């Protein structure tokens, strides 16, 4: 278990617990009562810490190295029925964006999402979940196929942003994202988008236009990362905590401002402390929303999508 800096007290208690267990096994003295007590203490501490996370701490949890990524969600939600499909049919297969068919309790779904690497080598190959234009174009190709066969779409968003590389610019990163926004608005099938980690900027939004946009409890979604925001507005990297607060990037803030449609609770201590429970919650949320959305006509869904995003923004009219 990797502990975040604010989890120091838990880490200390955890060390104590391990020592205690070691002593218990060596001395053959029954220390089970103390072990249980300490375990309870640890749990209480986690509850305490996580009941009061700052926005920056949420950002940290969203990036926890043991946090589950898109393919793990898809595998569990689809009960391992997932068949991955590759390529944008033009340039390449972008490993930072994955997608394909899967079943949720008998319902065929097109799954799409940014994928971060699970080890050093894969992190490079998957460009830390930063998709190239061909990634967005693959996503669109799969979404149009889902529409053709009248299957709903579920996207998992987890990206520090679209890849800012030279070739990405040559191949029209801006156009690729823009096209997705335009096309997703008009998709005739239900679309559910779930932010499972980082939702940074246009790179996240590029697969983020849905009938229901949901955020897991310990994720963030904004126009820029707190670090970059700090460096631009404060002209220093040292104001990331303040930037995280100012950006109002937490699920709670995003919901309060009407920019997302719901929050999915995580297990105490974050998704990585109990991935199975998280997957199950996410699965139930998807089923619930797909069921609700299936009762509305395609035309009505599209109109509601346009109305929802069309209403976002706060302006005043001067007299």
């Amino acid at each position, binding site marked *: 278990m990797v502990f975040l800096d604010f989890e120091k007290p838990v880490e200390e208690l955890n060390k104590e617990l391990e020592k205690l267990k070691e002593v218990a096994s060596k001395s053959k003295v029954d220390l089970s009562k103390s072990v249980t007590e300490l375990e309870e203490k640890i749990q209480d501490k986690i509850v305490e810490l996580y009941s009061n996370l700052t926005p920056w701490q949420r950002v940290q949890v969203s990036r926890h190295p043991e946090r589950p990524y898109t393919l793990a969600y898809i595998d569990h939600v689809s009960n391992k029925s997932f068949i991955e499909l590759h390529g944008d049919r033009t340039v390449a297969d972008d490993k930072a964006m994955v997608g394909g068919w899967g079943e949720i309790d008998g319902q065929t779904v097109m799954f799409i999402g940014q994928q971060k690497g699970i080890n050093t080598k894969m992190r490079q190959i998957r460009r830390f979940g930063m998709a190239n234009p061909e990634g967005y174009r693959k996503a669109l190709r799969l979404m149009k196929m889902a529409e053709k066969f009248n299957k709903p779409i579920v996207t998992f968003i987890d990206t520090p942003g679209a890849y800012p590389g030279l070739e990405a610019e040559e191949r029209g990163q801006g156009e690729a994202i823009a096209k997705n926004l335009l096309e997703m608005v008009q998709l005739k099938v239900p679309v559910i988008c779930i932010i499972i980690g980082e939702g940074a900027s246009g790179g996240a939004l590029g697969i983020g236009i849905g009938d229901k946009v949901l955020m897991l409890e310990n994720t963030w979604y904004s126009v820029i990362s707190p670090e970059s925001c700090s460096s631009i*507005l404060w002209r220093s990297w040292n104001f990331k905590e303040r930037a995280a607060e100012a950006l109002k990037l937490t699920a709670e803030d995003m919901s309060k401002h009407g920019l997302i449609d719901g929050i999915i609770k995580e297990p105490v201590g974050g998704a990585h402390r109990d991935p199975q429970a998280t997957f199950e919650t996410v699965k139930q949320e998807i089923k619930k929303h797909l069921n609700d959305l299936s009762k509305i006509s395609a035309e009505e869904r599209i109109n509601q999508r346009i109305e929802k995003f069309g209403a*976002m*923004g706060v302006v005043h009219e001067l007299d």
Partner: protein
Amino acid sequence: MGWFKRLKEGITTSTTDKKETPEGLWYKCPSCKKIHTAQDHHANKHVCLDCNYHERIGSKEYFEIIFDNNQFTELHENLVSGDPLEFEDTKKYTSRLTESIKKSGLKDALRSAYGKVNDQDLVVCCMDFGFIGGSMGSVVGEKIARSIDFCIKTKTPLLIISKSGGARMMEAAFSLMQMAKTSAKLSQLAQNKIPYISLLTDPTTGGVTASYAMLGDMNIAEPGSLIGFAGPRVVKETIGKDLPKGFQTAEFVLEHGFLDKIVPRTELKEKLGSLLKMLKN
């Protein structure tokens, strides 16, 4: 403004030495340094008579260049931004807005108007870089959205002139969602088969490029404009070496297939008029 200027310096042609010397009688080109009378420069649509450098201009100048006899009706001119996040960095967003309004004489980074272009009806949404770096906030999105409603109602084609550093950070996710909002409205315009021409000018980057700027039925650009998604500084940091010459210029973007045409500002009105006429007949 300061933060944006700083970001821009050293990336494109420096505009810091641009001056209208004395009392606006002379124009010194920041690119070739030649001097022309302000009158000649103005008559040439603010394009350098020697080197074709396109000076950054605002909605006032574009409206004058595009609309017949500079006659137009402004739409939704009284919209100003709210501050839903009560955003504060080194300064309160509300103070930033007040200062920008006072300094620029504008209410936000986009103005919308309708009028005639060589006798053809057109709605023009034009961004103003002079207002917080032409950044896209709620007012920019709302004016585009309402202008599209107007276009649909009156069956009038739309031109959006982009000139922007991208998102307005002080509106955070609200700014991000303007990408979704404008794209949603443009999809409605498309469903109604009303032409949309996007004009990309220097600079067009970030969320503006990744939404309406790249969604024209026809995407046209002014020569030499910086056009990209990621800023050149960020790309340079990513690849860890210097950027090739001409990277992210309009000419580069045309060559890679994302623009229909580069149109010098001196020919803009004529080309717009012809396109609109052809689409109508």
